[in-house]
């Protein structure tokens, strides 16, 4: 037992000497997370705001100007251009100079005055379906409240029924998508770093022949694998600390949950990514293959974690598949810990998932590795 610890100690020491000797790698390891969280923190947002809007007002009446004003004051739209005819509308949309065009017909004010119904048209660039959907909803809201105002003015004195929704948004009242995305960026970062580093670790030793040299020593598989994993656990926590500091201090993401839980779940999650990395390194023959395999796994892992696309929106089969994705669980845990401050009890599924998948990956790696040595 003591001897095992001593041997593992030597392996860890060796990994650290190697890691710190490669200055370039070291720089990447510590500067990369800062840059990534900083840049992606700004870049990755699903908020739709300042969509460039063109207006084609055929009516030019006080009433039509009022509607245009209402659009101008909405944060979703940014009135960029006043149009002068159908050709210009078409061109501007085709060239992507505007994302939406509001068309107010001639006779808008006159017909409203006569209590007749009027259509206003909104043309949307639907290439980005998500953004146009949001724009569509906002535009409809603006037009509806405008028409409600018209109705009120017409029926002054008459009592009107009034149904108004009172919406309370919990946990992230200002609906700042950054608060939701940045913890996700940290998760992705951690996954990438740890899977890739362990994935390459054993393969590099196989390429240089040192793995064979280790195989003729009395070292045990468990000792070797632990010696390969533990250094990365330490490095991973260091990187996590840096990334979280940026996330809390710079972006002011609130952390409402327990730090202890975060650390525990991170450990549990690392068991998964490191296991996956090890598994890759027992399958891959060259470092190139290892990088390829890790990328293949990561793309699935990230896209099917709920990072960008809610899992509930996926087809049922895909939803079921995500249960095999450790990122899915950790992503949920981190986001809920940050924004909701949820306790242990709300993470039962996540705990189970991570506790099953991690050890399975580790066990498979150990089994495969044992076979290779013979």
């Amino acid at each position: 037992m003591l001897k095992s610890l001593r041997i593992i100690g030597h392996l860890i020491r060796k990994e650290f000497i190697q890691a710190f000797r490669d200055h370039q790698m070291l720089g990447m390891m510590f500067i990369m997370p800062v840059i990534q969280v900083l840049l992606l923190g700004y870049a990755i947002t699903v908020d739709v705001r300042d969509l460039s809007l063109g207006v084609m007002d055929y009516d030019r009446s006080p009433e039509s100007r009022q509607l245009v004003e209402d659009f101008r004051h909405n944060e979703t739209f940014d009135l960029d251009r006043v149009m002068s005819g159908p050709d210009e509308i078409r061109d501007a949309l085709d060239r992507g100079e505007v994302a939406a065009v509001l068309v107010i017909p001639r006779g808008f004010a006159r017909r409203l005055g006569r209590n007749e119904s009027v259509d206003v048209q909104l043309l949307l660039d639907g290439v980005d379906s998500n953004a146009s959907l949001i724009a569509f909803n906002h535009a409809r809201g603006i037009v509806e409240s405008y028409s409600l105002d018209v109705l009120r003015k017409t029926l002054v004195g008459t009592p009107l029924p009034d149904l108004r929704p009172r919406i309370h948004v919990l946990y992230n009242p200002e609906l700042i998508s950054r608060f939701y995305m940045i913890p996700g960026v940290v998760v992705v970062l951690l996954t990438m770093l740890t899977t890739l580093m362990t994935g390459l670790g054993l393969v590099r030793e196989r390429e240089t022949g040192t793995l064979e040299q280790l195989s003729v020593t009395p070292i045990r598989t468990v000792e070797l694998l632990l010696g390969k994993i533990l250094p990365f656990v330490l490095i991973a926590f260091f990187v996590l600390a840096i990334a979280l500091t940026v996330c809390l201090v710079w972006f002011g993401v609130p952390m409402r949950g327990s730090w202890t839980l975060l650390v525990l779940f991170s450990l549990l999650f690392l068991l998964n990514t490191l296991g996956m990395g090890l598994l890759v390194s027992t399958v891959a023959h060259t470092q190139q293959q290892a990088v390829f395999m890790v990328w293949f796994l990561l793309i699935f892992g990230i896209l099917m974690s709920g990072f960008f696309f809610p899992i509930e929106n996926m087809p049922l089969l895909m939803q079921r598949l995500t249960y095999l994705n450790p990122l899915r669980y950790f992503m949920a845990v981190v986001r809920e810990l940050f924004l909701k401050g949820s306790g242990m009890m709300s993470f039962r599924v996540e705990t189970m998932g991570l506790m099953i998948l991690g050890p399975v990956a580790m066990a498979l790696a150990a089994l495969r590795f044992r076979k290779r040595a013979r």
Partner: protein
Amino acid sequence: MTPPETIAIETRELTRTFRRFIAVDSVSLQVRKGEIFGLLGANGAGKTTTIRMLTGLLKPSRGEAWVAGIPVHSSPEKVKHRLGYMSQRFSLYEDLTVAENLTFFGGVYGLRRPDLRRRKEALLDLFDLKDMADRITSSLPTGHRQRLALASALVHEPPLLFLDEPTGGIDPVARRTFWRVISDLASAGVTVMVTTHYMDEAEYCHRLGIMRDGRIVAVGSPDELRNTHQVATMEEVFLNVAGTGEDAS
């Protein structure tokens, strides 16, 4: 049945196949304690595969292999602390220093700190690497790398040493020094099994086994082999029994 104590290595009908290809074919041989035994043969004759089976890196398909009284064919792990192994690749951690490599391999063999320090000093001395102790391994010339690889294989003072083409790519002077060290080790009781295809190196061996197509085709001391084949040089012996010998220099 366990071989007698004077026998360091014994194989019985040792065989290894890769799919249909028979790499090593029913090899039976005995190596005495303190002997330098050379495996001679062209590339692909099965020398490396034999050594890999004896060191527990590869499982035999058939047959038995006893190393230091331990049945390697059934319990390959048990023999590992008793043997040193150096491959033709001089597998070292290129980004560690000379001293760090020795510390690491010693540590992996479970050496305690005082022993580790003592062995490191002794090996740096023996292999004349003292001035290079803090050099990064990748910056060493090939001859020094080979010495360090051998030092790393000896750090735990193994009674058996397996060398797989240990002198590839190093100059004649370095080779002579190398063989002097090997002879000294053998005099001190270390059993050495070495593969080579350099004929002049065959002379350093006490006994030789010449391999061809996975089989041992001749065994004996260099003198015995020359006498039985009635030739003047090992090269001729080799050409006689090992076929073309194209790859042998």
